[in-house]
């Protein structure tokens, strides 16, 4: 547990606002800010969502470049180990409650890369996925449907990936370390030192 940035992730107190919780729940549903982290081929499916034809802003969805303010993490396509490291770091940077929407078949089971040596087959083992959309690639309508599903889940409280991540942190952590090796964060950081 001595690695960078991990100590605090699970060791903070949860403060529940009982009185205003319904209000906040509604607000969370109506205001999902996307951390646009475009991996794989799904990234290109996001801009149509923002344009006049689909316009996700009418649901209060807004792309937001900073993960600290973000709520909704879109994994748009296949995930390689290298990407996964960034995904985990960005995910841990987001603040609870946070939700993950996985696009397409690849995060579910590897999709067309089912036998690739370098694609993460099952994303759910490393970070908790709340809603997954099947398809290769899902059309914007399907993505919209996925977002709608996410909203429904937020409302009835079943979108609890952030809770699962905290409760089962040991499990996720073990899987991550299995894939990347112990102390991968520092190692990864050091790797880039030579380039800057």
């Amino acid at each position, binding site marked *: 547990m001595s690695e*960078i*940035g991990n100590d*605090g992730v699970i060791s*903070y107190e949860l403060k529940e606002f009982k009185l205003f919780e319904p209000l906040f729940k509604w607000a969370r549903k109506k205001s999902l800010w996307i951390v646009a982290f475009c991996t794989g081929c799904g990234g290109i499916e996001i801009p149509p969502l923002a344009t006049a034809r689909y316009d996700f802003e009418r649901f209060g969805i807004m792309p937001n470049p900073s*993960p600290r303010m973000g709520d909704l993490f879109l994994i748009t396509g296949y995930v390689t180990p290298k990407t996964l490291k960034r995904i985990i*770091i960005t995910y841990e*940077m987001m603040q609870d409650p946070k939700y993950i929407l996985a696009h397409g078949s690849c995060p579910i089971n590897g999709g067309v890369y089912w036998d690739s040596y370098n694609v993460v087959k099952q994303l759910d083992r490393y970070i908790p996925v709340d809603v997954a959309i099947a398809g290769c690639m899902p059309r914007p309508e399907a993505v919209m449907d996925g977002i709608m599903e996410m909203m429904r889940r937020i409302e009835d409280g079943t979108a609890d990936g952030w809770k699962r991540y905290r409760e089962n942190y040991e499990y996720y952590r073990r899987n991550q370390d299995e894939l990347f090796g112990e102390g991968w964060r*520092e190692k990864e950081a*050091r790797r880039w*030192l030579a380039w800057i």
Partner: protein
Amino acid sequence: MNEILIILFTPLLAGVLAWAFDFRGVREVIGLIGAAVPLAYLVKLYPAVIEKPVDYALTVGGFTLQFQLGTMSWYFAAVASLVGLAMAFGLVATSRSGYDWLFALMSFTGVLGVFLSQDFIGFFLLWELMTFASFMMVLKRNRHESLKYFVLSVIGAYAMLLAIGILYARTGALDFETIRQALIIDVSLGTIGKGETILLFTLFLTAFGVKAGAVPLHVWAPGAYSETDQSYTAFFSGALSKAGVYGILLIYMLMGYKLYAELGTFHGHLTFAYVIAWIGAITVVVASFLAVLQEDIRKLFAYSSVGQVGYILLAFGVGSPLGFAGGLFHVLSHAIFKGLFWLVTAAIILQTGRTRFRDMGGLAEKMPFTFAMGLIAVLSLAGIPPMAGFASKWLIYEAAIQAHMPLVAGAIFLGSGLAFAYVVRFLYGVWFGQRPSELEDVKEAPLPLLLAMTILAIPNLVFGVAPGVVTGYINRILMGDVVGGDYYRLVTQTGTYNALLVSTALVIGLAIAGLVYLYGAKARRVPVTDTYQSGNPVTEEFNLSIRRNFYRPLAEALEFWLRYSWDRFYERLAKLSEDFADALRQAFYNGNVQSYSWYLAIVLLILALWGVL
């Protein structure tokens, strides 16, 4: 024993003693006493001074030096003594030698003497004492910069001497009162012509402009301010530059009417005052732009100091009573916030041994008290209400706009924006962001330095919330109800500023915001490396701060103007004269006896032709 004599010469005496008994502990105590005595006596004399001026005459070798503690001298002397006391506390921590104490306290005496003198003999002598002492302080650290300071000071001194000589020749007097009367009478007599008046004005302006650091005579300031003990710089920039400002007031007092009569008005402004206002405005803009682009903490504050004194010149140049009120107030607030800045700088340099921004960062956690003091100084300099810096700046704004000097007032706006920019550069470079690993074991500054900062920080807050205390006294100086209102409220003809109400509103706002803050989830502390880097992991080895060229885009936007520099111009001039002298020497002093005899013959011939022989 007259109090004025004690006020004047205790610092000098203490300095000499501290130099003589150069033991750790002894010199500090002597020096502190020496620096505290003037302030104590000034406070004691306050009731007497507001009744009527306290006079004292001192006869030295046939000359009679007259000193007077009037309302204005008291004000300037009190500001200088306050900064002087803080400087002494600072020196306890930063200085290890009697040399520093001797010359620091010597210049203290010099400054007080300049403010208290009532004739040009004492004024000039103590002015030179002050210049010499500060020159010695710089000489110890850096020869080149001290010579630059010396040369410009000498130019200023000669200018002043010439002016005094002309005045003496024309009026036959050296004391201020007689000269003033004589010059007023001279308006109708007309013995001093227009050209001569302009010459006098230019000479005095040069003399005082050098000390105040007005553009284009400011070039000594950045070097001299930074190449000395930083605790001393608190006094150097906080009080010594005020001597120049005081000189400008002296021009008004002695020659104001004469200058008005000779030069007339320009679009409704006094012509000579308009010149001063524009010099001030140009100083503000140029120095502030340069301050923004500095990479060294000392240089940044040196330029900023030059710029802030420009505000005072500008305010005096407005020429209305309100302008004087604003300028005088800014004398106080500049002394306290800039003194505070220099002490903070002294603490940083003492504790880290670094001066450049690129070597610093993240010190706020290591030196929290110093940081708090620095923040007060920043808020005051940037003119955040309710701070002393805002009250004075507000008066200057009012004065400049009321006097219908729109472009000059525009320069203040630009200058205040730039002030904002460079103080934030200071905050960012020194206090925030990632801390270099070598600075991990930096400690809080020593106690005397913290005391010194506190001495200067309290007035920043007190005179910020209650600016009426200062303006009330300034009304006495200007002998009229220039700025109305009470302790907390300033009222001019056209505007009003209630410092207490602003503070209250700010407190209300902070309370509301604080409540919202407290309502939210408890914040968990994260290290600086837990930061968004497009998802990349970072460690302490990564550089997360902009260490160099923070305001690069500004430098790019100003590319054209930055090609010209007064500093380089003077250096070139110096080089040119050096080359010229060299050429002269090689051509004439060639060591050939024959050519020397030829020179003699030619000179004799010329003299003969002229009819001397």
